[in-house]
């Protein structure tokens, strides 16, 4: 009974842990800031599903929603979800401000954060120079070519940083680019800066020029307060040198300075609502349109790639895919896009959309591409349409995949078409094929695969070597085989001529074996007996043996029967011969 109670308590404990209460908290990245520096406000909601970011107001502060993130963590068998809403808080004036508690509803209950306080101080470190104050050793200048533009229109601008010729300078840290103060606009990535000489009020300056393009994102007065770039400058002490000439023996003082430019104001105009084409999606500039397709002959169900090239000058980074019309008989898919910049800023470019298309039935024309943009110079919308491209499609009609028609409103009147929400292709339900994140060269199977042919080659090499060695040793082995047979004959035979013949043959074979490896060098038994190296007694015994062989075998003299004493003597001579050799 007690054990059951224990288990019950344990299970209840686990369940209590698993069902955690939602919680909410708010935090600021900094509690003290200055007018030039926005801070980040984060609202964290744990264990509750909230999709809409709460709206936050505070006097004296501009609070803008920046993004949502959520993550799930599983800790001790408990999964919890944390949703974070991030806001950018921009101070508009000095003072101490309260951000009131933020309320969030989840699961029928309301949760509140605690209030936050932000102190805004005045930062008077602005050392912005202006071209008018050119007696300064360094200053910045913002050059804006126009004072009005449309939302989305790209305005090429230049940031010029002037340095007295006696100053050595470099961006600090190296590779850093200027930072703009202000809001309501976006800038393009900077290409590498250029440097040139410039004369202002009769004084020569080195000028570092950064180019970029600025785009207003909302209508109204766009106030560009300034742009700042840090430089490591080396300034000479005193004024011994003449202006324009660097003295290598002069002492220099190094320091990091923030060089600010002047500000500027641009009137950003809203794009006209009148005559706005349905296919307009935000492109502003001046463009041309060209289409092509591959292949020109296909079958139903086979893919066709239709390329749409939009070329010109404008905001390519905000350009949406063009609209396809006359798509009857075609299945269209999300295109891939590629942008090729034609200048270092990317203002002039070619954007290519590749539409994968599949013909559902035999058709003779590809869909027509419609692309609208706003021309800021002509101040009107322009719609470009591609000419119909011919294509030959053969084959059977494909099964219809169209979705059921959308029901109309209560009165049957057509409703305004909502903005389509991009969706993703459906999930895969087939059995998953296991895969590895290990690079192929880190997987054992790769090296096993290498070991198999390597082993094969090793075996092949060994086989070849073995075969050659066998061939090379064949004469030696034949000699040894013959010698063994002769020795057996000497041991076993009682026939004197036969034994004497075998003994002399052994001597001859020894000579052959000794001189075999020396090309062109052959000795006879007589030559060897005559050499000085042999002991005298052995030499005479061998001569005697050879003579006995000659007399017995060729002269048929002496006994035909071999005595044991003579056999022993012959074997002794042969052994001594072998030892001497």
């Amino acid at each position, binding site marked *: 009974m*007690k*054990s059951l109670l*224990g*288990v019950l308590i*344990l*299970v209840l404990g*686990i369940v209590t842990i698993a069902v955690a209460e939602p919680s909410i908290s708010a935090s600021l*990245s*900094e509690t003290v800031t200055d007018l030039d520096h926005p801070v*980040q406000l984060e609202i964290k909601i744990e264990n509750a599903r909230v*999709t809409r970011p709460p709206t936050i107001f505070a006097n004296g502060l501009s609070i803008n929603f*920046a*993004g*949502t*993130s*959520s*993550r*799930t963590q*599983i800790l001790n*068998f408990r*999964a919890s979800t944390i949703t*974070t809403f*991030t806001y950018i808080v921009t101070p508009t004036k000095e003072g101490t401000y309260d951000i009131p508690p933020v309320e969030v509803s989840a699961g029928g209950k309301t949760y509140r954060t605690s209030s936050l306080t932000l102190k805004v101080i005045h930062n008077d470190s602005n050392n912005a120079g202006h071209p008018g104050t050119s007696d300064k050793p360094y200053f910045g200048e913002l050059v804006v070519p126009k004072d009005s533009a449309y939302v989305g229109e790209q305005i090429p601008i230049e940031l010029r940083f002037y340095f007295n010729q006696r100053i050595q300078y470099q961006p600090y*840290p190296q*590779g*850093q*680019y200027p*930072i703009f103060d202000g809001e309501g606009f976006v800038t393009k*990535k900077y290409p590498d800066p250029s440097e040139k000489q410039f004369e202002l009020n009769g004084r020569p300056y080195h000028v570092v020029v950064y180019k970029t393009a600025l785009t207003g994102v909302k209508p109204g007065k766009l106030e560009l307060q300034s742009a700042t770039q840090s430089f490591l400058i080396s300034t000479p002490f005193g004024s011994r040198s003449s202006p324009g000439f660097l003295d290598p023996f002069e002492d220099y003082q190094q320091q990091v300075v923030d060089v600010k430019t002047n500000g500027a104001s641009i009137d950003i105009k809203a794009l006209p609502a009148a005559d706005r084409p349905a296919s307009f999606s935000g492109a502003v500039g001046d463009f041309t349109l060209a289409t092509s397709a591959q292949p020109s002959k296909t079958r139903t169900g086979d893919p066709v790639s239709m390329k749409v090239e939009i070329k010109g000058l404008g905001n390519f980074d905000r350009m949406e895919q063009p609209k396809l019309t006359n798509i009857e008989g075609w299945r269209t*898919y*999300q295109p*891939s*896009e*590629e*942008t090729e910049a034609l200048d270092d800023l990317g203002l002039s470019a070619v954007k290519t959309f590749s539409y994968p298309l599949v013909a559902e039935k035999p058709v003779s024309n590809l869909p027509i591409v419609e692309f609208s943009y706003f021309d800021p110079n002509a101040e009107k919308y322009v719609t470009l349409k591609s000419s119909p491209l011919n294509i030959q499609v053969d084959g059977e009609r494909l099964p219809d995949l169209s979705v059921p028609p959308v029901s109309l409103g209560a009165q049957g009147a057509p409703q305004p078409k909502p903005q389509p929400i*991009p*969706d*993703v*292709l*459906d*999930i*895969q*339900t*087939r*059995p*998953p*094929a*296991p*895969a*590895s*994140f*290990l*690079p*192929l*060269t880190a997987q054992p199977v*790769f090296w096993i*695969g*290498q070991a198999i*042919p390597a082993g094969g*080659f090793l075996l092949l090499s060994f086989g070849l070597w073995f075969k050659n060695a066998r061939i090379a040793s064949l004469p030696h082995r034949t000699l040894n085989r013959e010698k063994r047979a002769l020795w057996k004959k000497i041991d076993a035979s009682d026939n004197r001529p036969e034994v004497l013949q075998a003994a002399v043959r052994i001597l001859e074979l020894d000579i052959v074996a000794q001189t075999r490896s020396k090309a062109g060098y052959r000795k006879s038994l007589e030559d060897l007996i005559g050499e000085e190296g042999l002991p005298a007694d052995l030499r005479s015994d061998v001569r005697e043996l050879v003579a006995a062989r000659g007399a017995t075998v060729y002269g048929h003299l002496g006994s035909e029967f071999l005595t044991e004493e003579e056999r022993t003597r012959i074997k002794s001579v042969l052994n001594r011969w072998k030892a001497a050799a």
Partner: protein
Amino acid sequence: MITRCFLIAAWCLSFGMSPAFATVTWEAANEAYQHGKYEEAKVDYIQLVERREYSADLFYNLGNAWFKLGDPGRAILNYERALVLNPRLEEARSNLRTALKIVGNDDQPTLRERIGDYADYFPLVASIAFWTAAVFFIPASRKQGSFITFWRTAFIAAIFVFVGSAGLSFWVGSGSKDPNRALVVESATDLKYGPAVTARPVESLQIGQQVQLISERGAWTFCRASTDSLGWIPTRKAERVIP
């Protein structure tokens, strides 16, 4: 008595508690997704990932679940993981494009990144070409014989393929399987000069932008952005592509 209680509790933990995790299957996760229970599906897929049952389809489905839950950053990350495991999974490529479009990231991959998707193919091709060249060397090295020109041409061609693919393999390295490759998964991410929120920003990073992780210090990570700028970002704002 205490021992018996402990044993029963352990039994409960292993057979009573863990089935919720042990019985998570691919089919169950897919069913949850198809019934619109995206949160449940996501947790199930994550458990499959934690069990290291890696597959391109698993990460693709997990990416879809994140997408449906309104987190395009982690959707992009998981589509990338699916493409690392299977660069020919066109559905993942299409969904990746959609998610990148939603977050406004129109950065085009560099040539090296595109080739890096196929980094595993180069050592494979190089090794096949090497052994083919080794085999062709035997007939090609003879002074005369039938088809001697053919064998010599084939040997030289195999050597060229070996050198080319080995060079490409060296150039792309681990490619998309680089363990230090990470993607920015949260918005409002600034690359900063130092590991502090008060540090000045180097540049703003977009969701889905690739960064190369170099070192970690506390909650901050030193990294190289795709523009080659170096700086610090909060560790939680970028996740490694290789889990």
